[in-house]
Every structure is written in structure tokens, then in C-alpha cells.
């Protein structure tokens, strides 16, 4: 099942490490195994089996989100909801402040016989700005947290091969310590039926 060097496609981790100095500055250079599947269920099973067998699953790359994979990987829940809530709160405060300040304080205006501080007419703008701020906070939160920004170049170095945006599901296993047993790893893999296994190096 494990392929020979000649069969391997282009290196799965294309820009692994540029030189040794970089490696010592930012972390340790570690060996990674990219185990590819063609089906989300097998991927999920593989993650569970590998983790149960004591291997460290660094990440899973997939063309679409797999249900239940966060739990299988043991990832903590996202806190984006809180970000959005705080954004919305800020929007409401800004909207309210803006309207009260311009209409009732800086230049009090009586329009249509309503008091300068008439609250009902503030509902629409306050609502819109609440939603606007919450939405912007959500997107900025997502992009900042995952460092997503327009960049020049090709595929990001963290992505194991081009297939994971098409039809490949890749489980990345990291060799964290010397206790990593290739034989045991191969034994576990042989029960999981991956379509392809490749390896590479990356600084983690």
C-alpha cells in the first residue's frame, strides 16, 4: 500500500523549511505523514482510530467540512459567536450615540413635532448598524483568527497537496517524539484503507 518514492506526487508540503536556521528559530522540524482518503466517513474513522492508537493527528484537510470531525480531533468550540455579539453591541452603541449626539445635543432639531430625542425614529438606524458591526466583526474575526488575507503566490505551505480542495481528504499525522513507531503506524493504516500516504517535513 505504501508507495515507492517514484510514485509519489509532488511534495505534499511544498515549502516545508527553507533552511535549518529558520527551523531553530521558530520551532522544531518535524516529520509529517499525509494520509489521503476519498471519502469523508473513512476519514472520520481514520482520525478516531489514529488518535485511539496514540498518534497525534495534527489536522485534517478536506474539500468540505466533515460532520463530527471537530469532536474527533478534540478541537475546542469556536468563539466567533462572542465576537459577533460584541460587534453588534458596539454597533448599537455607536448608532445610538451618533443619533442622540447629532439630533438632541449638538444641534437639537424638532422635526414633525417630535422631540429631538424621539426614540422610535432611532430604531431603524440602530438596527442596521448593529447588524453591520456584528457582520463585519464576524468576518474580520474569521479572517484574523485563521490568518486569511490576500496573498501573492500559490498554494499555502500548510496545505498537503492540491487534492484537498477537490476530492481528497487528508489526515496529517505528526511525529512528535522518538517513540513514533513506523511499524505500528503502518499496521494501523493497513486497516484504514487510505488511497495514498505521503510524507514530508515541516516546522511546527
Amino acid at each position, binding site marked *: 500500500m505504501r508507495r515507492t518514492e517514484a510514485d509519489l506526487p509532488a511534495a505534499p508540503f511544498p515549502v516545508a523549511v527553507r533552511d535549518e536556521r529558520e527551523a531553530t528559530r521558530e520551532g522544531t522540524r518535524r516529520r509529517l505523514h499525509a494520509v489521503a482518503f476519498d471519502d469523508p466517513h473513512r476519514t472520520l474513522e481514520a482520525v478516531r482510530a489514529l488518535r485511539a492508537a496514540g498518534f497525534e493527528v495534527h489536522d485534517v484537510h478536506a*474539500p*468540505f467540512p466533515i460532520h463530527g470531525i471537530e469532536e474527533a480531533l478534540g478541537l475546542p468550540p*469556536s468563539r466567533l459567536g462572542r465576537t459577533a455579539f460584541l460587534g453588534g453591541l458596539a454597533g448599537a452603541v455607536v448608532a445610538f450615540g451618533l443619533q442622540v449626539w447629532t439630533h438632541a445635543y449638538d444641534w437639537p432639531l424638532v422635526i414633525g413635532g417630535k422631540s429631538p430625542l424621539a426614540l422610535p425614529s*432611532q430604531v431603524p438606524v440602530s438596527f442596521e448598524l448593529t447588524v453591520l458591526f456584528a457582520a463585519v466583526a464576524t*468576518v474580520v474575526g474569521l479572517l484574523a483568527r485563521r490568518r486569511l*488575507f490576500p496573498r501573492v503566490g500559490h498554494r499555502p505551505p500548510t496545505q498537503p497537496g492540491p487534492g484537498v480542495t477537490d476530492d481528497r481528504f487528508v489526515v496529517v499525522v505528526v511525529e512528535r517524539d522518538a517513540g513514533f513507531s513506523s511499524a505500528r503506524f503502518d499496521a494501523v493504516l493497513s486497516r484504514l484503507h487510505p488511497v495514498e500516504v505521503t510524507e514530508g517535513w515541516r516546522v511546527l
Partner: protein
Amino acid sequence: MSAVPREAAPHVEPLILGGPGYGRITNEIAAPLEARPGKAWWALFLAAASLLGLGAGLVLYTIATGIGVWGLNRTVGWGYDITNFVFWVGIGHAGTLISAILLLFRQRWRTSIARAAEGMTIFAVVCAALFPFIHMGRPWLAFWVFPYPNTRGPLMVNFRSPLLWDVFAISTYFTVSLLFWYVGLIPDFATLRDRSRGVKQRVYAFLSFGWDASTRTWQRYEKACLLLAGLATPLVVSVHTIVSFDFATSVIPGWHTTIFPPYFVAGAVFSGFAMVITLLLVTRKALSLERLITASHLEKMAKVLLTTGMIVGAAYGTELFVAWYSGNPYERFTFLNRAFGPYAWAYWLMVSCNVVVPQVFWSARARRSVPVLLVASLLVNVGMWFERFNIVVTSLHRDFLPSSWSHYTPTLVEVGILLGSFGLFFTLFLLFVRFAPVVSFHEVKLTLSEQTEGAHAPH
């Protein structure tokens, strides 16, 4: 219990046709982007671009000369311009609605059509925003609508005016729709990046923000999409509500009625869905996406059309009933004038297109028939345009004072600008289907995986 589990086969047809294989989906959706555009695309594009050119010329003429070149007069101060504005904002609603509400309710059929609908939203809002802009007469002073410290007093904008609420509503809606749309596109640009070479790859790499398909990213991505959907749903409702406030907070009979907010929202959904149907019928044919946008999708959209058509019909009925029930002579006159006055043809055109035509969708065969859907969806949009025309013009042209009664006839300039807005809309849409996947890669794959999961469910 009998031995045979009779409930084993629910009457559910698959949403994605053509068998398994995620790679196949990538190929099918990416194919039109990687091929050279066909003759049909060029023909449509040139037609749309010429209309756009015509519209742009007439807009420049209007701005250079003044809005006196339109048919407006002292009694009818809002005509084609505001009708078009409301019409396009309405079209812009189904996109976010399909995407957001159907996402929240986990309706899987949304995945194949959501992207096109979201794109449509953005282009329609661009068209809508154009009209108040040119109606200002001096559009180079458009920035005066924003509240900022200035040397005019500093006299701030009037937060009591629904027209200012509109500024906030439309710009918020545009921003949030754009965010929602672009966030959806990021993983798909990554797919295109990984399939292409050279300059194209670099462009898609730039657009895909360094997407690496990691689970950690997907986790937050899904959360962000749900949050945006949750925010966009009330937003859609609020935007058309505020558009309805432009009319309803005044005291003009025919405008000032409390049912306007939900009535406008239902109308917007109705016309927006009709436009989505029109666009998708053309797109699926032109890009050979019949296996992803199936008859089942069309049928579901036809049902939404039928339902919202009846809601709109119920609103017409309520308005008429209450106009009588109120005992207010001005209210009553306005509605009699709509139905039997000089613009009666527009009123009955509206009723037949919006209430009568959708009734054809009680028939399952009609819901799945492409020609019937195409004709009906076009007629619904004609009807919805005339609904706004009726609201704007017939409520104005016979004022409280009979001495100021008047008639409104659009000039060719106004008709040309309306055509130009269609040109703008279709030009943008045609460019969109050339440069971005019109169906979402990752969402269709997710739907396919759930579909196969359903087929192999444990017994």
C-alpha cells in the same frame, strides 16, 4: 408489524444527479470557467452591454441637463425612478433569503442555487442604489447623505427621515451581502487555484486568501456562515421594511398603511424568487448544470412563488377591505382610483401577473416545466414592477386637491434608463458566471455526501 418495512422509501428525490464522485462535481462546475465562452454567452453579453451603454449615456444626459428630462411634474414627484429603485431592491432580496433562511433551516436544496442568488442580490442592489443617486439631480453632492462634521452649520442629516434610514439600510445590506457572498467564495477560489496554472493560478491564489482547507479553518468558517446567515435574515426583512417606510411614514392615502412592511417584504421575496428562477433556467442551460440544478430545485422554487404570490394577493385584499372598512373617504378614493381610474390597466396587469399567473403552480407538471416556469417568472416580474408603479404613481397623481390632479407619462429617457439598469444587471451577472463558480463546490459536495449518507443509513 409486517415483515416489510413499508416506510423505507420516503418520497424524496435526490437533489444532486449523476452518481457519486466529488471530483466529478469539481469538474462539472469548473468546466464553464475553463472553457472559452460560447457564442450564446457573447451574444447575451453584447446585448446586455449595449443596453448598459444606452443607459449610461442617458444617465449622463440626465445629470448634464437636469431631471427635467424626465416626465415628473409637481404632483407626481416620484415616477419611474423610485419604482425602479424599489423593484431592484426587491429583486435583491431573494438572494440573501435563499442563502440565509434556507441555511438556518438546513434546507439542502439551497446549495445548488444559493451562489447565483447571492450574486444576483449584489448586482440588483447596485442597480437599486443607482436610482436615488441620479434622482438627487446633483449626484456629486451625494456624500451629503452621510452624517459627518461639516461646514453647513454643522447641520447634521435628519435621522427622522426614512430616506436617511434607507441610506443606512441599503449600504448595510450591500456590505453584508458582499461579505456573505465573498466568504462563500473563498474555498471555491482555492479549488480553482489548485486546478489552474500561471497567471490564472496567481489571481485565484490572491482571491482565495491562503485557504488551506484545514479543519480548524472549516470549523470557524461554518460558524461564521451561520452567524452571517442569522444576521442577514432579519437584515433582509429590515431593508425592505425601511423601503416601505419611505412611503408608509408619510400621510398619503395608499402609502400610509401599517401592513406595508410585511407586504413589501413578501413582495420582495416573490419578485426575487421569480428573478432567480429566470436566471437559473438560463444559466443551467447555458452552462450545462442540469444535474446540479435539477427539476426538484425548480419545483421547490415554484412552490415558494405560489406561496408568496398568495401572500401578496392576501395583502391586496386586506388593503382593499380596510380601505373600505376605515370609512376614510381619501383611502377609499385612492383604491377605487387604482382599480378604475386612468391607471386601471396597470392595476389589473399587476393583479393578473401576481395573483392569477402563479396559480398555475398548483399543478405539479407546471412546476417542473421549463417553458411554463420561464414565462411565469417573467410575468411575475412584470407584475411586481407594476405593483411598485401603482403604489408610487397612482397614489400621487390624484392629490387631496382636485386642482392639482395630474398625469404622469414617462419620457423615453426614463424608459432608457430602466433598460440600462437591466443591462447593468445582466452584464454583471454574465461576467460573474465567467469568472466565479456559479454553483458552490464545497456546498454541493457536502450535500452529495449527506445524500449518500442517507442512502447508506444504518438500518
